[in-house]
């Protein structure tokens, strides 16, 4: 029988959702995000990914900065650290450095990452700290009510750009590639299944993985990064894209009118933890 013609029974479907177990990764707190906010997809995608990879919640730490995106840890049932604006990565680095056995996921908004936090990204990337960094990019400062962010488009009108934004936005994926992050990908909140796949893949990568997630702020952005615009804007990476080729990845990222979804670059190299173990070995010590 054709899969798509099978009738769907609500009760059955609910049982299925409960049974698959990913709901266990949700906390009891109800998200404080606006209805329709792209961030709901992240919670769903993240819990699905954890479930699929079979990671125990108690061995997972979600670290965030400050912003709507950074409220994320409160809504998942793992250990969590809601830190300071922009300090997601150094705190996450400290956690991973102290306990290699933990799965550490860093989460933040575009402002948290690329405005106040911009100085930490190159270093987490070059050291290849074995964590996953999910940036929820809505091109705006959501929590403080809609000011321009470093990824806001030229011409965007916000309370701090009443005469339209003039600053050229940053290109986060290009930046991450230039830091030679060892895994770089992009997803979109409007494609939740692909998003879940990408989160799982990013987390499975050994080393620093960076996933850029396009996500509309339905409350403060009615014109730019909306679902309507993104739905038609995004494209898949070409099937023949070579994800081991840095310059090819850069070429894909440079063609940014139509943001590509998928994995741009991937490379296996020693992590910070590996470097630490090697240093201990050279010193004649025993790794803990």
């Amino acid at each position, binding site marked *: 029988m054709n899969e798509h013609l099978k009738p769907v029974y609500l009760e059955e479907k609910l049982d299925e959702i409960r049974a698959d177990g990913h709901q266990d990764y949700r906390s009891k707190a109800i998200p404080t995000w606006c209805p329709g906010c792209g961030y709901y997809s992240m919670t769903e995608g993240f819990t699905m990914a954890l479930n699929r990879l079979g990671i125990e919640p108690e*061995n997972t730490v979600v670290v965030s900065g400050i912003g709507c995106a950074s409220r994320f840890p409160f809504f998942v049932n793992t250990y969590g650290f*809601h830190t*300071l604006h922009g*300090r997601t990565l150094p705190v996450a680095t*400290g956690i991973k450095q*102290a306990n290699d056995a933990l799965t550490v996921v860093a989460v933040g908004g575009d402002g948290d990452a690329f405005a106040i936090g911009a100085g*930490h990204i190159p*270093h987490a990337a070059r050291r290849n700290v074995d964590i996953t960094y999910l940036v929820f990019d809505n091109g705006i400062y959501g929590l403080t009510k809609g000011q321009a962010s470093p990824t806001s488009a030229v011409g965007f009108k916000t309370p701090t750009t009443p005469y339209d934004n003039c600053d050229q936005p940053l290109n986060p994926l290009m930046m991450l590639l230039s830091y030679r992050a060892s895994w770089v990908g992009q997803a979109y909140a409007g494609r939740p299944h692909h998003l879940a796949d990408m989160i799982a893949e990013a987390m499975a990568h050994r080393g620093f993985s960076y996933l850029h997630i396009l996500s509309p702020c339905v409350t403060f952005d009615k014109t730019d990064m909306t679902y309507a615009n993104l739905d038609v804007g995004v494209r898949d990476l070409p099937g023949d894209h070579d994800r081991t080729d840095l310059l090819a990845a850069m070429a894909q990222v440079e063609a940014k009118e139509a943001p590509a979804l998928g994995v741009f670059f991937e490379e296996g190299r020693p992590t*910070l933890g590996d470097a630490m173990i090697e240093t201990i070995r050279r*010193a004649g010590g025993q790794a803990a």
Partner: protein
Amino acid sequence: MKKNANDTDIQIAICGSAGDGTIAAGDILKRAMSLQGYKVIAFDLYPAEIRGFGKCISRIRISSGQTYSLKPQSDALVSLNDPHAIPHVVEVRDYGAVIYEDTPMARIPEGGHISAHVRPAQIPYGLGIRHISEQATGSARSRNIVVLGYMAGLLGMTRDVFHQTIGEKFKTKAPAVAEQNLKAFDAGYDLATRVFRLDTIEIKPPRHTKSGADAVMMTGNGAVVRGFLDAGIDNYFGYPITPATSIMERLTVEMPKTGGRVLQTEDEISAIAATIGAGYTGARTATATSGPGLALMAEMVGLGVMAEVPSVIVVSQRGGPSTGLPTKTEQSDLNMAVFGGAGDAQRIVLAPTNVEGCYKCAGKAFEIAEKFQTPVIVLLDLYLSNRYETVIPPKRNPFLRKPEKKIAVRNGNGAYKRFAATADHVSPRSVPGEPGLMHTVTGLEHNEMGRPSDLPEVHLAMSHKRHKKLKGALNLRGLTLCKRFGDEGEVDVGILGWGSTFGEILEAMYAAQSEGIRCSAMKVVMLSPLPIEQIAAFHDDCGEVLVPELNYEGQFAGLVSGELGRPVTRLSQVTGAPMRVEEILNEVRRLSGKQSPARKTKQQDTGDERALEAGLS
């Protein structure tokens, strides 16, 4: 504790320019004397610039009894470079020795030779240092060792121990190097034994010769490193900054040997952020910095307070404000250490007063941070970080290596309350990896579950909890939080002090006592929360309370007055140098009504109107 007049107590100053081997000669002297069981206190001054021929001076005090600081006057000055050494001739006491090159290389301008500056009561010893070095070793490079030998011979120091020390110092180099240096030493030493000695200095045997083998020379920073290692530090994150850098440099060598991890971060914000991240996992983690770095850490320390995550931050102060005087000492980061955060963000601040205290405070800081779940700042300054003292390391590791912690459990209805109210206001903590006790910590105000809440009653209760729990730190065992020295009961003048300056305070207090002034001194190690009861009791006993410190504003004085609501007399000095004992003593005399007439002239001479003013405020 009082000094025995029969004991050895001599101080040598060696002065040269960078490259002359000044510090190296001082180093041999310190080690040789320490090896024999003498107490040694030493402090070196380096030039601020990397390049060039800036002044180096090494001052070493050697005594059989306990002393607490350098003496204002040295018993001998050794010059390896006259232009640098000339200003220090006045520091030599009457009948003290000035040792110098008497056959200078080139023509020198009038007054350029040190012999022209030796005062009538001082005893000049000129010798052909360069010539002797060349004769003994074939090169002028051993001038520093020749003159060291001369000085040792002159003062009757034991030759063998120097031989042993020189041998050790050069044991990683080619054997010829040690040999050359031994020859240089002996050439100087032999010469001195043939010299007619006019001076009264004598080296008497140390009190506890046996302990020499156990004693080690250590700087404050070295002691911090030892304390960290003995307390089982797991992680260190740091960013280089004078005068804290050497802590990281030594830890990068030592920690990996026992599986520890060190990361040089991209800045100080990352260093403290990673320290707190690691602290969240339950690991013993520290960072070290100086004033500018602590300023950058201010926001993150506040997060540590709010999220109740342990962390240890060593701060070695230098001259400020701003980049200030990176290679000079000062105690002017106190206000920032205690008050430098947004909101009511009280933290624990400890300030050791000597090298041994550095060891104890650094090691204990982990226990304290874990016990009270909060950041602990250990406040040193350049003078304490870099000064050498002889320390007898403890036989048994004095630190608890495993955190004593309350065991977190899920309560009845299955919810774990990370910030549960308890009798001592400290809540049971769980760390990542423990099943069923997942929670999220945050810098937002939060309820017992750790969920953000801005309800009035929650904020009130949690502010209460965060402050009250710290009061428990005033009952800590195994660390001196404050201590009174000198006369008991009512006294004319009490000196209240903190940090590196307390050595000078003790010296001044003993001097004042010997002049018949009833005098006590109290050191305060725990600066936040303040042991205010003990301070108040001390204040009650003292006719006047003097607070000498190395900052302009009288920061500790303000802190104490602010909590006590009573006046104290401030004595401030901001020259980049350690406090002068004489300065404190003069204030004590003035306050006790026994002002020495000499004082007035001296003040006018130096034009130091500030010190006077401050003293009066």
